[in-house]
């Protein structure tokens, strides 16, 4: 036998599959299409989600430690425990002032020492007015320490003109604001804060954050300059944090809040709608994969049911020759597994080809890839394993039927 090193079940399975080669080719093609769709869809979805997340997180940190909110407490009448009845019926919310996070340097040290935390960067931000001739624009100034902040938001990459290096009197502005004010790198801007402090800053760079609103509103300067303009000497309004595992951000944010007593919001909490959309996409993809897998399973099962009927005489002969029920069962289980696995191998090829074509053909107007799709080994391995198992499971009922066949009836055909 050409397959001299294989056990009986393998030899008979392979011969049966070869003998019914047209059926075998059709079902393997069917399985291949199914597996190809699953592989490509999974790569597409994970690529798309990774792209969305990359875009969302390229201009923001994963966790923000926020300045304390000022609250008004209702007056209570004096009592021994201080818990007497409330005296004022209406409690008006207080005006939120730009207050610093208390002892922020110590908080930075604590957060940096936490497991899973990559970067912690202090930021002072608040509103400013930019005056240029007769034109006045309200902007948001963000005071940063470039060494740490650029590891969170890489402004270097987003710079259209100028340099990202910031001196004390430098400011970087967005492309929309530059256009609105008719200014460019090297021009001066007169800025005034609500506290009445003002300064003249030199535009060192013009950036594009990929969002028109941000490009019109956001400006960056050094932390000291912002502290001075916002009347927060030595203080910071937020601490920006990035973590190693972006999906662990909410857990780490809660740990930070417990450890430091400072309110911490993760990007997951702040982007709940985005996360719901990602979750809906994942659910839809899982449903599609399930139903494609189901159709693959039924395809294999139906082919094997037909095969058992077609091969009933051979089954009877084998039984008469002393082949056991267990061996017959394994012959048909193997056929199911081999059809699933063979289809999956071809399907992985189809999926890989589709990914390759996507990379070549799905391009943006500027010729760049719409979003990158990766051929990840675990995706292909799991497709192979799952398709093989699906084949085995699908083959179980026909295999059992074959094994339980009465040899006399089977031989009679």
């Amino acid at each position: 036998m050409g397959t001299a090193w294989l056990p009986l079940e393998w030899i008979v399975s392979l011969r049966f599959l070869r003998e019914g080669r047209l059926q075998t080719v059709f079902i393997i093609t069917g399985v291949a299409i199914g597996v190809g769709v699953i592989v490509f869809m999974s790569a597409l979805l994970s690529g798309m989600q990774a792209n969305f997340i990359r875009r969302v997180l390229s201009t923001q940190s994963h966790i923000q430690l926020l300045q304390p909110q000022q609250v008004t407490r209702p007056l209570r009448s004096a009592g021994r425990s201080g818990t007497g009845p409330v005296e004022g019926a209406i409690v008006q919310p207080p005006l939120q002032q730009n207050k610093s996070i208390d002892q922020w340097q110590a908080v930075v040290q604590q957060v940096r020492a936490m497991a899973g935390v990559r970067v912690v960067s202090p930021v002072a931000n608040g509103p400013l007015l930019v005056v240029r001739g007769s034109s006045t624009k309200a902007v948001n100034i963000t005071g940063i320490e470039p060494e740490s902040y650029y590891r969170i938001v890489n402004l270097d990459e987003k710079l259209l003109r100028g340099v990202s290096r910031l001196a004390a009197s430098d400011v970087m502005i967005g492309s929309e604001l530059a256009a609105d004010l008719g200014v460019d790198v090297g021009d001066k801007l007169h800025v005034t804060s609500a506290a009445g402090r003002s300064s003249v800053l030199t535009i060192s760079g013009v950036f594009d954050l990929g969002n028109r609103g941000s490009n019109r509103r956001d400006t960056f300067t050094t932390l000291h300059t912002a502290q001075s303009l916002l009347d927060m000497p030595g203080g910071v309004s937020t601490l920006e944090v990035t973590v190693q595992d972006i999906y662990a951000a909410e857990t780490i944010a809660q740990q930070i809040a417990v450890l430091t007593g400072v309110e911490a919001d993760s990007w997951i909490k702040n982007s709940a709608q985005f996360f719901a959309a990602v979750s809906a996409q994942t659910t839809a993809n899982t449903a599609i994969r399930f139903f494609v897998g189901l159709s693959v399973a039924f395809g294999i099962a139906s082919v094997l049911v037909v095969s058992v009927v077609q091969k009933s005489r051979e089954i009877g002969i084998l039984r008469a020759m002393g082949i056991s029920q267990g061996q017959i069962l394994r012959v048909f289980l193997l056929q199911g597994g081999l059809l699933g696995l063979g289809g999956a191998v071809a399907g992985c090829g189809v999926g890989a080809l589709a990914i390759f074509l996507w990379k070549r053909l799905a391009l943006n107007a500027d010729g760049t890839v719409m979003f990158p799709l990766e051929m990840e080994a675990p995706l292909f391995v799991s497709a192979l394993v799952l398709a093989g198992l699906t084949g085995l499971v699908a083959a179980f009922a026909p295999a059992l039927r074959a094994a339980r066949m009465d040899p006399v009836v089977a031989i009679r055909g």
Partner: protein
Amino acid sequence: MRLRGVKKAFNPGTPLETEVLHGIDLTLRRGDFCAVMGPSGSGKSTLLNLIGLLDRPSAGTLEVCGEETTALDDRALTRLRGHNIGFVFQYHHLLTAFTAVENVMIPKLGARGFPSAQMRQEAQALIESVGLKPWGNNLAGNLSGGQQQRVAIARALAMNPALVLADEPTGNLDTKSADAVFDLLRDFNRRQGTTVLFVTHNPALAARCDKTIEVVDGRITG
């Protein structure tokens, strides 16, 4: 091989119950070459299926190679059948996806699980002994009817069984091929002492057997 009061009914316990064998008593000794004759539908094939352990009797006892079989489970029956009984069917029933030699290897492959060089050599020797050496590597489906029946005989002898059951092996062959097939079985019977139960409608062939039994309406009449 000994049958005592063997009965076989189909659809037992239902309104369609039909008894086709009505208390068969039969004893065959090692080396017997026995012809079974009888009209179509008389129960010859059913009798062979019972003796070949492909089916179970409804009543009575059946001993094969000294072992009482009626209480054995399917696994034990399969083992006993595989090691001690060879079959030759009217329509040869070869596996068409396999070559002649591979068909002969199947019984040993089933018993041992894995093929071996020795297994192949033995199968080739058997194929040679039935005069099919040049066709050994041909697919079984590509052989003529007479050649296929000779392969079936070689396969039936692969495990060197104590008993060969041949159900009208010459029924679809011309006289020359039928004689050749009969001679082959007779030769193995004489050389190896294999017991042969040979169903035939051909009185000339039956006359060449050691003894003849006749089955009529589910009973042995002679």
